């Protein structure tokens, strides 16, 4: 492997979101919430959503928790991209993000609405770190689907 992983993985936008995460707070009366946990590394976070009905628009979304730079930046970027989206649009983003971090979607070639989220495009080179990026997204999905248990990466 000869790729320059630092420029791929630890881009400035990830460093910034890790240092000053957006929407890092609790929503007082969320319509949806869930807890996510990665038992392999101890990353642990809560996702809160407020969904306006009818229409299913996510008018607020936030997170709290502790983890590595990748997981925190991913959660932070997720909240900024979900705000104002409908649940249906959130589902499309979830799917595209998932394919992105598995290396199946190439943001330069394939049509997508990922925007800033494409900073994670290099992560599939680091199989051990993919779950760091996906934890917040799985937890968000679990919240929306009202999953009864803690969302675990394992």
């Amino acid at each position: 492997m000869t790729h320059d992983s630092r420029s791929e993985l630890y881009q400035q936008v990830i460093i910034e979101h890790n240092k000053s995460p957006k929407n890092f707070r609790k929503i007082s009366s969320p319509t949806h919430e869930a807890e996510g946990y990665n038992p392999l590394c101890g990353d642990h976070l809560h996702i809160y959503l407020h969904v306006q009905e009818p229409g299913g628009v996510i008018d607020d979304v936030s997170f709290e928790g502790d983890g590595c730079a990748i997981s925190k930046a991913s959660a932070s970027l997720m909240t900024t991209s979900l705000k104002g989206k409908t649940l249906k649009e959130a589902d499309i983003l979830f799917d595209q993000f998932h394919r992105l971090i598995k290396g199946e979607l190439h943001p330069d070639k394939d049509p997508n609405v990922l925007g800033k989220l494409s900073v994670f495009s290099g992560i599939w080179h680091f199989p051990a770190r993919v779950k760091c990026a996906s934890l917040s997204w799985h937890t968000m999905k679990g919240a929306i689907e009202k999953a009864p248990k803690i969302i675990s990466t394992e």
Partner: protein
Amino acid sequence: MDLDVQRIRQDFPNLHVNVHGKPIVYFDNAATTFKPRSVAQAMDEYYQKYTSNVHRGVHELSEKATAAYEGTRGKVQKFLNARASQEIIFTRGTTESINLIAYSYGRHFLKKGDEILISEMEHHSNIVPWQMLCEEKGCVLKVIPFNDNGELVYSEFEKLLTAKTKLLSIVYISNSLGTVNPVKKMIRAAHGRGALVLVDAAQAVGHRRVDVQDLGCDFLAFSGHKLFGPTGVGVLYGKAELLNKMPPFHGGGDMISSVTFEKTTYAALPYKFEAGTPAVAEVIGLGAAIDYVLSVGFGRIEAHEQSLLEYGTRVLQKVPGLKLIGTAKEKVAVLSFILPGVHPHDIGTLVNDEGIAIRTGHHCTQPVMKHFGVPATSRASLSFYNTTAEIDRLVAALLKVREVFP
């Protein structure tokens, strides 16, 4: 005579691979060690020249394989200074060895209210089997705490050790802290109370001479792959009088004396505990690993590793904010640390860019992480083939991490 590290390094092909275009620095020896060429050669020879099952045939190859397999048992006996080779049982590793004791000894001889004593710094493999046993049999698990240096609080051990204590299962050297526990003294104290002692020597055997008669332990477990040998093979040492009265762990071929549908009689030691075709190649590889490590010599290994520990402890302080986790007076060259503001997994990924392999995570010792209030640490665990120049590369890489995460 000092260890000729540069010559030793020639024996380990893995030390000469590149990672991200840089010569690897392998500091994950507590997870598994690299293997000298002679280990792979011994296994290769078995696979290419005398593949056959052991203890079965009268044909030439089977005789040869059996001799090599049993030859390793003799080497392990000498290596541990056990009284007899029948006290050496081959298992899949330390975890299976501990489970064997929990199942065979624990389920047969322990009863409700009996206490099992472990420590706060145990690997999960020396916690979970006992919790399972306690749940099943109604035994009580007690835990010896450690202090903020990562040393067992001996006075607490003395308090917890009572007439109710039936088994002390204790780690010799901690994988996440590097602490060397005073097991010999603890064994004597436990025996004074009538308790048996199992020593988890997984992290000990590659760093210092382990003598079961000198220690006086009743059982001792280790894994081949942390002793420069192959994965998939480990050892359980047990005093013959104890192993003899214990029921078998697994039933099957090779562990019987005779089988009818009415009654089966079990084989004598050690075969009673070795059901099924064993890991023949791996056992042979373990024999080669023991030969190798003895040829290097534990005196020289210990001296070199202690100088690495001393050097590493000193130069890691150059990294702003770095805090060592585990600063026991008696320790091996395990350098666990945290860098405030940087998650260990980010450290691990960034130093990997520099060709350096360290372990990040909870190291299968979550209670240790809880003690220090951290989710994980970064751990550099060294072996005798490591050098101070490699430690310098780690320090330089960590300074770069600090640049990425100011």
